[in-house]
């Protein structure tokens, strides 16, 4: 059996999740405390991938990244980056596509913490960064875990965006969900079944782990 699409899927999901963790924590923290009037607009933009068909997102990425357009050709000429039908293009599309799944749990986690925790840390002479790392983040561990797992699982299950912008290049953009579609098209049901079963089992295990951890079922094994 060819494991390549599955490995590619998890590589894509891991990198996407890592990037999302780095950008959503400051963004969510800022969004919870900001008083800007643009807040509802930003929140809407972040949530758009939840309701928009993935093909719409993929279509616009395809147009924007295409070397025939200004942005795409600028990237290609100045930075030497080609985002259409490439792995790096997939990553950028996945980051935007999975953004709400990371953003929402972290944002509500921050919002649920009493404001006095931050203030108490400030009057103790601690900087914003120290407060974030030592006080706020450790207290929203379950939200972080939920965000990480949901965006990982969501990226694994991504199909429409990948098909539009990544195409079906083995070893580069042929992730498991595309491979399944491909094998079914070729009436190769046993290969499709193999990919599907692997995805099914792995995603089941990931989600089960989240519910076990967040439900406190594993606490007795930690102490």
């Amino acid at each position, binding site marked *: 059996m060819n494991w390549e699409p599955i490995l590619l899927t998890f590589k894509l999901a891991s990198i996407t999740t890592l990037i999302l963790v780095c950008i959503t924590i400051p963004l969510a923290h800022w969004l919870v405390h900001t008083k800007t009037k643009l807040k509802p607009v930003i929140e809407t933009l972040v949530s758009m991938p939840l309701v928009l068909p993935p093909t719409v997102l993929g279509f616009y990425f395809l147009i924007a990244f295409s070397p025939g357009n200004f942005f795409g050709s600028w990237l290609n000429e100045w930075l030497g980056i080609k985002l259409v039908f490439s792995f790096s293009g997939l990553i950028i599309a996945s980051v935007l596509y999975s953004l709400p799944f990371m953003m929402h749990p972290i944002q509500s986690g921050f919002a649920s913490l009493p404001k006095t925790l931050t203030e*108490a840390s400030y009057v103790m*002479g601690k900087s914003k960064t120290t407060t974030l790392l030592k*006080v706020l983040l450790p207290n929203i561990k379950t939200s972080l875990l939920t965000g990480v797992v949901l965006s990982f699982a969501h990226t694994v299950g991504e199909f429409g965006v990948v098909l539009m912008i990544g195409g079906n290049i083995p070893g580069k953009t042929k992730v498991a969900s595309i491979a399944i579609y491909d094998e079914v098209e070729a009436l190769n049901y046993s290969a499709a079944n193999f990919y599907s079963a692997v995805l099914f089992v792995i995603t089941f295990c990931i989600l089960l782990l989240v519910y076990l951890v967040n439900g406190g079922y594993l606490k007795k094994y930690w102490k």
Partner: protein
Amino acid sequence: MIQLNLNKVLDTADGKMNLALDIVIAEGAFVTLYGDSGVGKTSTLRMLSGLLNPDSGNVVVNGETWFNSEKKINKKPQFRNIGYVFQDYALFPNMTVRQNLEYASSKNNSSKKIEAIIEILELGKLQSKKPETLSGGQKQRVALGRALAQNPKILLLDEPLSALDIKARLKLQDYLLKVHREFNLTAILISHDIGEILKLSDYIYVLSSGKVIKEGNPQDVFAANNISGKFKFVGEILKIEPQDVVYVVTVLIQTNVVKIIAQESEIKEMNIGDKVMVASKAFNPVIFKI
């Protein structure tokens, strides 16, 4: 010495209110801010600590300007070194009691200070516990200890004892007195409990809709006529009932309910819920062991 000259428009339940204060607090004093909810007591503490910016005015502490609207000086809360005990305690749930204290104490602060605080506030047995497992009174002690661990010159107490039962409250008042003496602090307390104020503080500001309407020694402020009686307690009116030609006023003093006879002229300005002073002048009180 703390000089506070603050102006701030606050949004309250009854619309906008202008908070305008001009007070000076001596070093080492134990001062109370007293008044109804929403008159600006907490906002005053927040402006002193830098968590809220005044619209105008200035804050000068021991000759150093912390805030000046004209010169655009505004020292960050991180650099004011104020010990703040929040009403909801604000203990960090992810840290144990000891870690809470250690987080608050700066790096150059020796662990001796933490040991001293743990001893004074009797936190020894709680050290390795997480805040969620503590009772209200214990959380309160930890919050107080944590505020002290940062070695502040000024201690702000925002109704720290209001959520506690009477027994825990009396104990913590003793802790507060001990701590105030021991660490040589200037303390500002917000409290509604007159007994507590009389016991703890040596100066009081009575606030009403953003302004100081009365100030002075707590005894003088609360005993308007300055009754010379040696036997006096502060309580709250629970009930006023007419009985023949007089009225029976039921008063709650700490945990005891007492009934007092009053004339119609005396109860005219009294309502249920009012704070009153019960004093005896002519009779000698009798004492029993129970």
